[in-house]
């Protein structure tokens, strides 16, 4: 910060001095936060990620309808245009839609029904719900003032259900189900890698061979086989959790290898030697001194794993070996868009893909920022 130039005053201004002094004594977490704050993309990313998770947690409140709500007259209805002002006054509304069906091709031609004005607003009373099965309520962030009215801001799917509400509800499954697997594989990876690197010798050799065996198990066929052997009647989400856990049992190896490598390198470092000579126990050695120095790597790999897990949920469900209806997830919703007819006639069925892209991008920006921040001394 304070650059020395010949012939110039070398004492920095007071505030800089203050910052410098605080930088010298700041804890690592504080340093990380300062560094993170500077990365604008990461901040935006974290806001988006937090927003998605809050939305997923309180989906019933954020979604105007329940995911099952349907209106038989609105099958494949296009998104309704939104109006906020009526005669210059704040009075949000949408128009109803009506269709005519060609008797031979059975194609629906939609038009706006200007005679039915559907007022909507914020914090309206709607279908009653229980958030996460506990908190009861019937207020929705926004929705039609009459809960029975059709309200399709992002169009309707093949059964006349609201796409927007379903995307919001789907986030709950899509953003959470795979987390179990990610953290499981992280814990196993760090533990086994740590043991391998710390002890070395015979232990290391045996663990490395086990890792090689685990690595050679093909995961997709295994997953398909597992999905087929689940006893009938197991709830589909539970099936998927089991499957992701088993996948986690296969995917910890990469993390374990990296951790082992870092341990092998670190245990020879001077500061570790110093700590050891200071009488630090093995636990303190690992968690106070070694882990922080490769925290950036762990954070990076988690933030890459989370989008990966969301994409694999989407991908596997899309292929039909992940989640299945009646579960509402982004992947399950996207399965309906496998038909040309969707792309041509009902493009709004592709909207869950936009949610996936937004979230994954935000997560990656956040991950980038966190990785850089976790290594505050790096230049």
């Amino acid at each position, binding site marked *: 910060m304070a650059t020395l130039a010949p012939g110039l005053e070398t004492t920095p201004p007071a505030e800089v001095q203050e910052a410098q002094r605080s930088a010298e004594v700041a804890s690592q977490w504080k340093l990380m936060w300062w560094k993170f704050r500077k990365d604008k993309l990461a901040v935006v990313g974290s806001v988006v990620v937090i927003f998605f998770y809050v939305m997923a947690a309180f989906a019933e409140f954020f979604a105007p309808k329940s995911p099952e709500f349907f209106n*038989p007259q609105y099958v494949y209805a296009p998104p309704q245009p939104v109006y906020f002002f009526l005669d210059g006054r704040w009075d949000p509304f949408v128009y109803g839609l009506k269709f005519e*069906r060609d008797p031979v*091709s059975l194609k629906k031609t939609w038009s706006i029904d200007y005679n039915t004005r559907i007022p909507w607003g914020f914090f309206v009373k709607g279908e009653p719900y229980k958030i996460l099965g506990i908190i009861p309520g019937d207020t929705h962030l926004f929705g039609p003032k009459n809960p029975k009215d059709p309200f399709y801001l992002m169009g309707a799917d*093949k059964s006349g259900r609201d796409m927007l509400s379903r995307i919001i509800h789907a986030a709950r499954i899509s953003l959470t189900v795979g987390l179990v697997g990610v953290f499981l594989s992280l814990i196993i990876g760090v533990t086994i890698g740590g043991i391998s690197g710390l002890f070395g010798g015979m232990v290391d050799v045996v663990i490395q061979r086990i890792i090689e065996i685990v690595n050679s198990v093909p995961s997709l066929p295994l997953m398909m086989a597992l999905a087929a052997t689940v006893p009938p009647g197991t709830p589909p989400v539970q099936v998927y959790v089991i499957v992701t856990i088993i996948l986690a049992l296969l995917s910890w190896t990469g993390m374990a290898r990296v951790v082992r490598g870092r341990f092998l390198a670190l245990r020879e470092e001077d500061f570790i030697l110093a700590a050891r000579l200071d009488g630090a126990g093995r636990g303190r050695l690992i968690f106070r001194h070694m882990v922080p120095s490769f925290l950036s790597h762990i954070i990076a790999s988690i933030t890459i794993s989370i989008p990966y897990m969301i994409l694999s949920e989407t991908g596997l469900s899309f292929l039909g070996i992940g989640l299945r*209806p009646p579960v509402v997830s982004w992947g399950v919703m996207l399965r309906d868009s496998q*038909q*040309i007819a969707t792309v*041509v*006639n009902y493009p709004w069925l592709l909207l869950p893909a936009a949610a996936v892209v937004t979230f994954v991008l935000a997560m990656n920006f956040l991950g980038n920022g966190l990785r850089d921040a976790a290594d505050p001394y790096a230049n």
Partner: protein
Amino acid sequence: MKTVSRRKFLKAAAFAAGTVGLAACATSAPAPTEAPAAPPTEAPKPAEPTAAPAPAEPTKAPEPAAPPSKFNESPMLAEMVKAGKLPPVDQRLPENPQVVTPLVREGKYGGTLRQGIVGTSVTWGGGLYTVQWENLVQWKPDFSDTEPSLAEKIEISPDGREYTFTLRKGIKWSDGQPFTADDILFYINDVMFNKELNPGGPGADWLPSSQRDGFKAEKVDDYTFKLIFPNPYGTLLYNLATWSGRQFAQYPKHYLQQFHKAYNEKADELAKQEGLENWVQLFFRKGPDTWGNPDRFMDVPEYPSLGPWVVVQPIGSGTTAKFTRNPYYWKVDDKGNQLPYMDEVIITAYQDPETRALAMLNGDLDFIKDPGEGNRELYFDAMNEGKPISIISRTPDGGNTISIHFNQGSKNPVLREVFQNKDFRIGMSHAINREEIIEVVFKGQGKPAQVAPLESSPLYHEKLANQYLEYDVAKANEHLDKVLPNKDANGMRLGPDGKPFSIIWTCLDQNYTGGDVRSWLQVAELCVGYFKAVGVEVKLDVISDAVLGERRRTNDVDMFIFHGGEGGAGMSAIFDPRWHIPGEYWGFFSHGWSPFLVGTDLTDEEKANFVEPPPRMAEYRKMFEEATQKTTREEQIAAMKKVLDASAEEFWVIGISRPGLGYQPTSKRLVGLPDGAIDGWLPGTHKIMRPEQWFIAEG
């Protein structure tokens, strides 16, 4: 042109080297096959003199002054006749060829049918119904009854036990060899009843287990044979006109006997040369396997066929299969033109229905089977935009869009007790808002109905079709209260054991044997809501069709949603009674009883999961068996009505609606498909539209 010269060559080789050498020659044949393609007629000439004249067909027209034939043939074949490579049309056709009246208008010769399939099975993708499947008797185009086909006359003894078939004299296999009663007897005596080929006894669906002991086939003369059954068998001809009758036209004795131990002592050695263990394996590789798999007709060019087109280029590991016209095809149109009209069929395989739909929309294809209800608008839009597509409607043969089954033989005693209670099923039926389902899932087409023969069918049964249809929650609750009176705090019903009552509803995901069944799941999702409204908890368990087979074996399907097809149009309910009598393979409502009612291949351990049915179930089967024994249509209808009375009384399955009209896109240039043609598996999907009389109008 290519094939025939090849076949000639093969025949010459066969005569020279004897039957045993045929397989070896066939593999060495490709050189002459390729040659004639480029130079017109000179190249194959040298092969001709070696061709010993086959007894049935002189190679040259005997007299130049032969009377002009009353039959016409394709210019492609006429040229070959002129070149002396093919006997004239009169000698190729039987004495009394089958006359096919064009279903749209008289066609013209030439052109190629471009058909698209999904997946790699040419047979099941749709090739079977276009190029191969021929029967002794076939459906009339309206599916109302059967009419003679390979057989020109069928006599039935008054007691319905003895059937005498007279084959059309002079029908030839695609290699020019005559099709006779010997081929039929070979099929029945040497294949079906051969202990080595069929160790488990005869495997043919036209011969039900009750008719096996004491059945025999007799040859009367070259063109006449008898099938003699131990019991009267009134519905035989219906069965022979469907898929069940395919095998009669699948076994060319003159070709297959070289692989059969009884005719060729060296068959085992031949098998070893091919790297197989014994002649049984060899026979199944060269001919149709145990269950009469028609794949050989799509895979093996030298396999003689009776179909309108024969394969010249199997699909192998590629994406196209090519078929050329069978010069010996035994059908003519009403003007005496030998069929088929089109010279070639090219079948192209696509990975998924969507890429095939794009090809069809793009005008790269002439015909596809199962275009998919979801794509209906696309085809109509394309047609309206002036793309070269035309669309006809198809009338489904099925009685319903959907059937909902409660397995009355569930291994769960609580469910079993509830499911067997008719009030439960009545209540569930009244709980369904059928009008809403029709609007949401079936695009407003059709009207509410139970699974039953159609109004147009002579077997139409008013009560069976229309009982318990109205959507009436109060009525539903009234019936359900008789079965499940107790409810929990949330209004959900408790089982007779006092525990929360819950049913796991097995539903298929997207595909069922390759067909798109998304609508089943869609209906099920709606029904779960209707059932919840009357306090019955149903949980969907969505599986892929690979898992379904396993669940069936362990009797783990308590509730199932299935199509409601088959048994709707015409007399079909009497030869596919799956919705009306317990024990049928696809009758999921009685699945848990089935091993006790019909034959089973389950192990004892697996069988322990199944339960014994009430005694009246065996009576229902007997009642149905009696109906199938009646020989006159009036008696059949009367007897079957009794079966349907019982079915209505039992109320086995819950239906949703009568199916609306289907659609069939074709290219604009393809003509011959009649509007409103019946559609379904029993009429042979598009076989009933007589592909042999389709033609290319222009382009």
